[in-house]
């Protein structure tokens, strides 16, 4: 038994040892900075930027409350709350849109013959290789007043004046769904690719309709892929700031823009740091909910 223990321990030691370079890098360049963000959120704001090294709860106070500029009355910061709400709403919508488009796409790719599957998969990833800014500009060309959609609709005589899509929540939603679609397709593909299609035969054999097969057989089995896709799309959507900035026109802010504002024109780094921490917490909580949901629905492992 002693030897056994030693072996077990050396296994662990080896695992840790081999992981050390990666862990060091991550702790130094990824986790460490997050702790500093948390620290900045409880400091006092500097004149133009930065912080003074004095403890202050003002950053956190201003996440939830606002003090009127003129009469100093304190009220609930409903503007902040509406920004958070809009972000969560748009992120959920983005996740759903990418899922509705991504599931059939992943299914389509996974059911191609093995020879051409890699090609279709490659086709999905190519846009991913293109710079995010360029992709956002591309979608702008589609939705702007003189863009493809409006031009086509006007040429077809369906509308007489362009529909204002640019600078609306719809534009932000379209942009984010466009940008993050591959992130949904890839994990779904991975799950469907492993899927045993004989199970569908069994489903049909047992009198299930196509819809019942989809709901009762396919979706539960590829659920890990669905959850991975939801997380991979939801989290970046929630933290997005480039796409909402360009397509929302600086008015329809998401949390990302709001945080960015505090580090730029708002000149309030502690508030920005506190907002970042809140965003991080939202992500953590949604992670926990996802995990709970996936383990509760699946008691048999």
């Amino acid at each position, binding site marked *: 038994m002693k030897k056994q223990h030693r072996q077990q321990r050396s296994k662990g030691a080896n695992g840790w040892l081999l992981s050390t370079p990666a862990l060091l890098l991550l702790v130094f360049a990824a986790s460490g900075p997050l702790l500093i963000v948390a620290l900045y959120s409880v400091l006092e704001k500097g*004149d*133009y*930027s*930065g912080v003074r090294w004095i403890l202050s709860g003002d950053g956190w106070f201003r996440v939830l409350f*606002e003090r009127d*500029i*003129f009469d100093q009355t304190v009220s609930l910061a409903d*503007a*902040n709350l509406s*920004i958070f709400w809009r972000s969560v709403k748009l992120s959920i919508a983005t996740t759903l849109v990418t899922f509705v488009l991504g599931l059939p796409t992943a299914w389509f790719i996974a059911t191609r013959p093995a020879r051409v599957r890699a090609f279709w998969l490659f086709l999905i990833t190519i846009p991913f290789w293109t710079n*995010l*800014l360029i992709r956002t500009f591309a979608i702008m060309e589609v939705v*702007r*007043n*003189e863009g493809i959609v409006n031009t086509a609709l006007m040429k077809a005589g369906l509308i007489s004046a362009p529909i*204002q899509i*640019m*600078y609306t929540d719809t534009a932000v939603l379209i942009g984010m769904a466009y940008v993050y679609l591959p992130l949904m397709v890839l994990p779904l593909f991975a799950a469907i690719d492993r899927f045993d299609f004989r199970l569908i035969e069994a489903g049909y054999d047992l009198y299930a309709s196509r819809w019942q097969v989809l709901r009762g057989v396919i979706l539960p089995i590829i659920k890990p892929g669905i959850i991975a896709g939801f997380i991979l799309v939801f989290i*970046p959507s929630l*933290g997005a*700031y*480039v796409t909402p900035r360009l397509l*929302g*026109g*600086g*008015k329809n*802010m998401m949390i990302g823009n*709001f945080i*960015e*504002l*505090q*580090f*730029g*024109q*708002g*000149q*309030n780094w502690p508030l920005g740091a506190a907002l970042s921490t809140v965003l991080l917490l939202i992500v953590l909580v949604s992670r926990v909910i996802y995990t709970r949901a996936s383990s509760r629905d699946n008691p048999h492992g």
Partner: protein
Amino acid sequence: MKTYLIATTALLGSTFAAMAEGQLNLYNWGNYTSPEMIAKFTEQTGIAVTIADYDSNTTALTKVEAGASGFDLVVPSANYIPVYVRQGLLAELDHAKIPNISNIAAEWKDVPWDPGRAHSVPWQWGSVGIAVNTSVYDGDPNTSELFLDPPEELVGKINIVPEMNDVLNMAIFNAGGEACTEDLTILRTVRDRLMAARPKWLSMDYGTTDKLSSGDYAASVNWNGSTMRARVNNPDVVYGYPKEGYPLFMDSVALLADARNVDEAYQFINFILEPENAAMISGFARYADGVAGSDKFMPEDMKTAPEIVTPKEFAAAGHFLPTCDQSAVDLYTAIWTELLK
């Protein structure tokens, strides 16, 4: 995650070439630097110029203030120069190294925000007004009421450039105040009017030139040079000078205290004060440059452009923005943040 560099590259990435031989790192407003002029400078001196963009004075100040930005030259607006100086961010210019300093036009040689041009030389100057597409709205463009209380035709079609001082001060002038006022009654009016007008705006975005000429914006609080560029592409665009008062600005090139390519920076400063070169800058961005004799080299269309040549009747309404006290800045920032979110 694929874009966190938008924040970090600008800050960190630009430091890459800081030490290289014959390198110069210029931090300037977006779409503001003539590529031909840069090419000519590189050709003459062998110095490669890296340009990074910003879209507002605060953005630039924040990044420079964060320290060790790696930039050599920055182009702040007049009212920001004293802030940079106060924070110790700028190096005092050695005029002996800038023979062309004498080319600065007489009225810009000694300015209130930089007495004796100790820290900066002119880049370009202009005004902030309102650009209107006459095919959408053909009323009088010369009033700031257009964005504070947009007429029916412009509701949901007007853009506001996200530059705090320009927008707030235009609104302050409209309310009868002076630049940098701390009069709470006026400021409250300003805030209330802006907040009431906000839902009628389409966006608060930078990069107005293209969108004005393409018709994505029917109107915009905008700079005169940008409006001229839009008008060249789309004759329907006109530039209005708000009669209630409008800001004038001058952006000046300044040498950062922690610049690493100081010699190259002096060569560049001297270069742009050459009238022919200054004219290239103006010819690109369509603003006046403040260098005596540069108009000889300017494109013909600028000499008569209604955006550049201020009509006599509106000249008096233009005001240079002074540098406000910290207490005013705090108030303005609060209003502006409220407006943006």
